[in-house]
């Protein structure tokens, strides 16, 4: 988007003035650092079992304590950041690619194509997020990659709708007609004129969806349908820790806090982005309600 220099610069300046957005941004940077260098930063190996140190509360040696197998919880939380980031990026990537493509064609060509595509999206949209994700994982089999595909499919309709709504207004603009008048092809018009002009709501939707995707992965892992042990994942750790809530609160607390902070950070940044780029979009709570 060569044409959006001034817009994006203005947006960045406005974001920098928003303390909540800056806080969210800092958390996200830390998360990315943890995701990239988690296993290097981790004080202990994630699968270093030490039965002599089972279920130790937080201490200087183990700031987040140890689990029922004596593994260092801090190390596992750090390493699991990579999984969360990966799930977020891949599943939202799938949803973005599929949703934008479908919404673009539906909104641009309208007519029966629009009807068929958007009714399919409505059907997907009608399912509660987790139910649909669980159903897809049940068909494809549990595991990290199927969880990512499932979450991607679940979030596709949101992107299709946001894209289609944008396309419907942009395609009525005179500059689109002017592009048609120069002889530009439909694909060229979609790529060069329509997409850049609907980028703002899509960027907002992407940042918000990253939060929901990470949350969904945690839920799937909690249900045992996502990341498989002994690979660490926040949702899975939460699940494993649930039996020790009264005896060893730190097993559930730290992975839960990691999920909470990550989702909060994405939502803060997403909300701020929306305020800056696209004031007409839904708020997070509205989007969550719609997402079921």
């Amino acid at each position, binding site marked *: *988007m*060569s*044409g*959006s220099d*001034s817009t994006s610069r203005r947006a960045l300046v406005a974001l920098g003035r928003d303390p909540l957005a800056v806080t969210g941004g800092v958390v996200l940077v830390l998360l990315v650092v943890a995701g990239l260098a988690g296993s290097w930063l981790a004080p202990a190996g994630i699968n270093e079992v030490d039965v002599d140190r089972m279920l130790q509360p937080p201490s200087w040696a183990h700031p987040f304590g140890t689990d029922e197998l004596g593994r260092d919880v801090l190390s596992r939380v750090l390493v699991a950041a990579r999984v969360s980031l990966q799930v977020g990026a891949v599943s939202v990537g799938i949803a973005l690619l599929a949703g934008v493509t479908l919404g673009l064609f539906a909104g641009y060509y309208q007519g029966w194509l629009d009807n068929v595509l958007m009714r399919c999206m409505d059907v997907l949209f009608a399912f509660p997020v987790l139910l649909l994700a669980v159903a897809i994982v049940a068909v494809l089999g549990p595991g990290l990659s199927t969880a990512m595909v499932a979450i991607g499919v679940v979030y596709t309709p949101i992107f299709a709708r946001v894209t289609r709504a944008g396309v419907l207004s942009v395609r009525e*603009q*005179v*500059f689109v*007609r*002017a*592009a*048609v*008048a*120069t*002889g*530009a*092809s439909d694909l*060229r018009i979609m790529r*060069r*004129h329509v997409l*850049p*002009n609907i980028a703002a709501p899509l960027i907002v939707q992407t940042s918000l969806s990253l939060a929901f995707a990470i949350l969904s992965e945690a839920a799937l892992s909690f249900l045992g349908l996502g990341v498989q042990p002994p690979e660490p994942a926040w949702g899975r750790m939460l699940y494993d820790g649930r039996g020790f809530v009264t005896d060893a609160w730190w097993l559930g607390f730290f992975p839960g806090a990691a999920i909470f902070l990550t989702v909060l950070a994405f939502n803060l940044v997403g909300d701020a982005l929306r305020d800056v780029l696209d004031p007409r979009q839904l708020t997070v709570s509205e989007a969550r309600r719609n997402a079921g």
Partner: protein
Amino acid sequence: MTGESGATDVVAGLTDLAVWFPTPAGVVRAVDGVSLTVRRGETVGLVGESGSGKSTTGLALLRLVEPTAGTVQVAGQDVTRWSRRRLRRLRRRVAMVFQDPQASLDPRHTVGASIAEPLAVHRLAASGAARRDRVAELLDLVGLRRDLAERHPHELSGGQRQRVGIARALAGEPDLIVLDEPIASLDLSVQAQIMNLLRGLQRELGLTYLFIAHDLAAVEHMSDRVAVMYLGRIVESGTPAQIWREPAHPYTAALLSAVPVADPPVQRSRQRIILAGEVPSPIDPPTGCRFRTRCPQARPDCAQTDPVLVEIGSGHEAACLFAGEAVRAMRAQPVNASSP
């Protein structure tokens, strides 16, 4: 490339063109039987009130609206049934300048990118460097600084934006440029500059224009031939001299009398023909002559017979059963402009 008046080869033409739009209220007959030819190097002016179908007629030449009936010819070829793919080639031959230059330029594209769009679409530049050179050349042509290529539309003035729109239209070296109210949304002082630019470019490059406007003075100034439209039809056509000096259709006479004269005594003393009522709905046009419901000289025959364009002088045509006579009668028995 001056003195094109002798050239007679037809660049584009419409034959019995009809463009109807279905709406919930009924079928809107935006254009309903228009024939028009544009010859190389000339400017044909198309005037009429809003809703007369003049813009739709212009859009039809690029096949930006679907003809309901009739044919569209460009460069000797009937393009009425051309496929979408072939139409893209047609749109190199016929270019368009839009009324609102702000709305017709993509806000996310630089001026250079907008001007280069036809070059990219029709692969007219061999390399990025060739494209930049051509854009610079086009900016020179329309009187804009070359460094404006890096700017975005919102950084330009209205007149500059319209120059960009003109440069974009020139980029593909079209045979015909449809100018759809190119000055209507500009400041008065800028209007003159843009008209002079368009005339200068025409002289320099031998361009052919279809100039669509409701501003009669602009049309007179720009055009070699003029067609007056009313409710989807051409009611009169001829040279500006013929039409301004001896309008033959009552509608033309009324339209001309509405233009103020920059001479107060003349303006005060001259006759004004005030038309009664509103333009009828193009969903349900009047029977017979479409203008009869507002014509001060309407007679019983006018409700019966739908008048066709008849030559009343060399190249001067009017679609009125009482062409000439009605206007003379209007002028002899002036309609009382102030009567309630």
